[in-house]
């Protein structure tokens, strides 16, 4: 209900203001917010520190873009097919990665991501290499929706974003979600209570990959293309940045983190080309000063002992 309300409210505010920059900002926020939330399913809720989450963002974007460009006539069908492919990828990569513990898990996810990145760069005939998918992504009408119209793209993105948040939240609030937290908090104890820990790690990996890919699909729609840096390690790093900024212990923390990250990025690039310097300093202050995300701090203050 609340998600629906927030969704309608967002759309109303946006249409009332009718401001294109606001719409752009909100769309990017929805994309990166969803991406960060999906990463946080792993990092925050399951305790799996993936260095390679952008792999799914990039894969989703490319799969969708390529399907649309190579003649799938229905946009929802292409999106669903891309999601299915991404889930299959996540299943395979995840099954291999979760066998490893701690830092080795992280490294293996990174290695797989860089492998995908290398494939995207090398397979020029399919992916366009470093120049990305060119010529735009066709947007045939479906169900009366015309995604060639920016406003309708915005509406669809917003609806998908809130629906995804609702879905992720439902999952995280379900017995399944609590099982993931058990794995995060104390995997050996969870096993001693009869929980098949590895299976749950894998399921979390696939779900996170799925929503990461969905964010990638939205991104492909937004920029009307797909680029290798969608699957580059820097985007994985920025995902971490976002969730650390906003807070990994609170559901909406990553969304806030994404919002701050984007606003900071957009504002700083307006005034200086030394964007990295500013972002680096902010990151240092958050990590060394607060030692947790903003919403984590707020929640820690609010919670009675």
């Amino acid at each position, binding site marked *: 209900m609340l998600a629906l309300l927030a969704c309608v409210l967002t759309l109303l505010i946006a249409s009332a203001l009718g*401001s294109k920059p606001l719409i*752009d900002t909100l769309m990017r926020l929805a994309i990166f917010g969803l991406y960060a939330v999906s990463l946080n399913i792993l990092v925050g809720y399951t305790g799996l520190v993936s260095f390679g989450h952008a792999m799914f963002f990039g894969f989703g974007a490319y799969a969708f873009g390529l399907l649309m460009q190579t003649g799938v006539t229905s946009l929802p069908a292409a999106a669903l097919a891309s999601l299915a492919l991404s889930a299959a990828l996540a299943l395979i990569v995840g099954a291999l990665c979760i066998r490893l513990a701690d830092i080795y898990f992280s490294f293996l996810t990174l290695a797989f991501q860089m492998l995908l990145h290398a494939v995207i760069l090398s397979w020029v005939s399919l992916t*366009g290499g470093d120049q990305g998918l060119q010529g735009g992504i066709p947007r045939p009408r479906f169900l009366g929706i015309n995604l060639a119209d920016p406003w309708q793209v915005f509406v669809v993105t917003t609806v998908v974003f809130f629906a995804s948040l609702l879905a992720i939240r439902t999952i995280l609030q379900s017995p399944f979600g609590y099982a993931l937290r058990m794995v995060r908090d104390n995997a050996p104890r969870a096993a001693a209570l009869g929980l098949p820990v590895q299976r749950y790690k894998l399921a979390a990996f696939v779900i996170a990959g799925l929503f990461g890919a969905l964010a990638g699909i939205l991104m492909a729609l937004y920029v*009307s293309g797909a680029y*290798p840096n969608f699957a580059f390690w820097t985007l994985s790093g920025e995902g971490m940045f976002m969730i650390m900024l906003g807070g990994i212990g609170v*559901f*909406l923390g990553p969304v806030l983190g994404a919002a701050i990250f984007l606003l900071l990025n957009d*504002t700083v690039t307006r005034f200086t080309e030394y964007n990295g310097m500013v972002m680096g300093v902010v990151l240092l202050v958050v990590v060394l000063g607060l030692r947790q995300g903003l919403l984590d701090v707020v929640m820690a203050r609010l919670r009675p002992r």
Partner: protein
Amino acid sequence: MVDSGFGRPVFGSPGRRSVLKAGLVAGATLSMPFVARGASKQPIRIGQPSILSGRLAQLGISSRNAAQMVVDAFNAAGGLDGRTIELISRDSKGKPDEAARVVRELINNDGCQIILDSEASSGAFAVQEVVRETGTLCIHADSETTSLTADPKIRAPNAFRCARQVLHDSIVGGSYAAGIAKAQGLKRWMTCSPDYVYGRDSSSEFLDYLKMFEPSVEAVGATWPKLFAPDYTENVTRILETKPQALYSALYSGDLVSFIDQGNLYGLFDQVKFFAINMADYTTLHAVKKLPAGIYSCNRYLSTFPATKSNAEWSAAYDKRYNVLPLNWAWQNALAMQFLVEAIKKTGSDDGKVLAGALRGMTVESPFGAKGTVTMRAEDQTIVDYAIGWGVTIPQAPFVEGMQAADWTVIAARETEWKKQKGWA
């Protein structure tokens, strides 16, 4: 309000909700500074997305410098009935999605009516998609990838290109190299270009035209260092192993310098004739501490080619103002901005459609023209008749001598043929 079941609110508690809202409101206010802008005598805003940080930062910086010089001259001369041009350059960090965002922001947020795109190719394609959607007038000033304006699927009526093209360079390079191959008996050719689309296109098209102009040559191998590779040892040894008589490379900037430094160690350039299309650009020429004599190169930018007074003056003015010599990207952006300024003056308008109409087929006088002028070809909205030439390096200024200028009638003929083959013309 939804509870977790044990009385602990987890989602949408008032605290977090208001934080989120505050963020949105802050975002909205930050994003709309133009709301308060006055209406009279407002400047004509031109947005320039470019790479100002990271390994390609000098691309953006020289682009910005050159465009700013033209803008300043226009404003100093009184602008358009007192209306000045404001150039807003913004960093995309070389990421295509960020370039798309910056362009949207420049258009929607900063009220730019015109986009001067100073992105590398991948960014340019992203910018192209944005301006296709918004209909904003756009000139790409740095992307050399031919398909951007040649491929009917990709080009857009409101988007122009004011930059050299891989195809043009390849035709010229092929014909120049064919002449030398014939004279010196260079039969075995090899390529060493960066492993990305520009490098691959450049190598294959160069070889195509080389073979067309001199059928006796054969390509005996190719090696593909990756972009920004620190190390070229394996490529150098690969070339030595293959023992070609001549080598073509589309490496540029720091990568080309590293390649030359590392090739020198093996005495590579004593053993093969080296055709480096991107050698003749000042930072590259200066950065190579021991520039081998006898490297064949196309001009990227040289103040001595075309050997005209106006070219030398422009170069000197740039050097004086920025204390650095101009690069290839500088002349392209200077010219692009000149096209815009002349279109504005000619039409007295800042309307994109009107300006686009004026730009199509426009010819301007320019130090960078092969014969003193450059034309924005109407059919595919890209420039022709700019100066292209090949020469040979010498270790000291002016670094390149024996420049042979290209013949644009040959280029035009071959280009038409090529487009027909592709089904684009």
